[in-house]
């Protein structure tokens, strides 16, 4: 079994560009917040193996490098 994946985002740095949502809509959603910056919300914190590549692409193409992927056990 490959280790499971956990997705983390650093909201201090997110500008809500939405490239992550474009790469992996199963995992990320960008939410508009009146009076604040739009920001990402992680809707699937521990994505299955089948979404590993999409999660990687989201992290790689995030303009602000907000997304980190952790391998757990």
């Amino acid at each position, binding site marked *: 079994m490959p280790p499971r994946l956990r997705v983390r985002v650093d909201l201090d740095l997110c*500008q809500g*560009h939405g490239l992550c949502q*474009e790469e992996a809509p199963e995992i990320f959603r960008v939410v508009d917040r009146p009076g604040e910056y739009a920001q990402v919300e992680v809707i699937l914190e521990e994505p299955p193996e089948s979404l590993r590549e999409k999660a990687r692409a989201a992290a790689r193409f995030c303009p602000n490098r907000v997304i980190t992927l952790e391998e757990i056990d």
Partner: protein
Amino acid sequence: MAARPVEVSGAKPGTGHFEEFLAHPAEFLLRAYRECGELAEFHLGDMRNVLMVGPDAHEAVFRAPDEQLSTADSYQYMVPIFGEGIQYGAPLELERQQVKIQSNALRPEKMRGYAKVIAKEVEDWARGWGDAGEKDFYEELQQLVLRTSTHCLMGAEFRAKLTDEFGALYHDLEAAITPASILDPYGQAEVFARRDRARARLQEIITDEVRARRREGGEHPDMLQVFLDAEYLDGTKLPDEQIPGMVVWIMFAGFHTSSNTASWTIVELARQARFVPAIEREIDSAYGAGQELSFAALREIPELDRFIGEVLRLHPPLVTLMRHVRRDFEYKGCVIPAGDTIVISPYVAHRVPEVFPDPERFDPTRPAPKSVFAGIPFGGGRRKCVGNAFALLQVKSIFCALLSRYRFELVEAPESYRDVMPSLILRPSDPCRLRYRRRA
């Protein structure tokens, strides 16, 4: 009592360090860091500033909220350029929505279209160069980026008829951004009067285009279309009279920053020729047999990416990022009081030897620093440049097209190509002449 940052030597009564800062901001700031370290205090007239250097310091600043460290307060000199009600001339909650609208104009589905526009412009530009020749590439790339930007922003028709005037008006806007304008952007100087006339004329020609679009309808693939369709969060449309300001803002952010980066890239390709064969192989295999370079291929093109990354490390076009302190800001036992200005400098940040060993050496193979706050050509945090992906796409498109055809050589001695700062944006010295030769 809390510690204070160390003050940079050489302050003069009344003006402080203004004169030395004015002569070459990047060199002054580098001296300040080398003399004082992580925190260096300096004075521009009555304005007290603290330069903060290093990944930890940058992170602390980039994580601070707008309400504590204000970008808007520091950039009020941009208000006469972008216009009242736009960016830092608008309340914070509106400005955030305007940034979001700008970033919508740069989304991936739009970028695919821009990539094609840029490729076409580069082809037209390089047609007729022949097998070999010599050009001033600072001038050339400025003209090219003016055409690509105008085309992506305002569409093909506007690009065909108004590019020259657009460029001249921009020149007048940029000429008014001087270190003196930071202290008083509303002075009586002739450059400010010329700026205001240029801004009024831009309002006119962009408004004409907006009216024509509203009259004729239809969908256009450019950024202007995004502004025409944009709505604020309360459902009201972005008012037509704000559209010129949005255009001026996005153009301003992306014009000379990108063209100067492209100029430095071409100089370094000529000066650091040993790295060129690997880049050419990569581009040749991405292009295949004369096929169009796809958006996907442009997105990840590692050798060229690393080369441009190293250009941006040594020659970041924006040398100072400023934040006005609204509430006391504490960093490692030092308190920077409300009223001071914090300065972060990508130029200095990228020359910290603990992060970038032997910093003046051009080396695209150097390992990426651990911290995302070490390399900051586009700034960082929630105020990071929203056009960063577009800027890289543009520069990469230019060099994929050029390097598949030509090689470049220096005309002058290598050390004569220097960083200069006639305005607040860093660029290569001119003349910036290079020879080109068609690849075998």
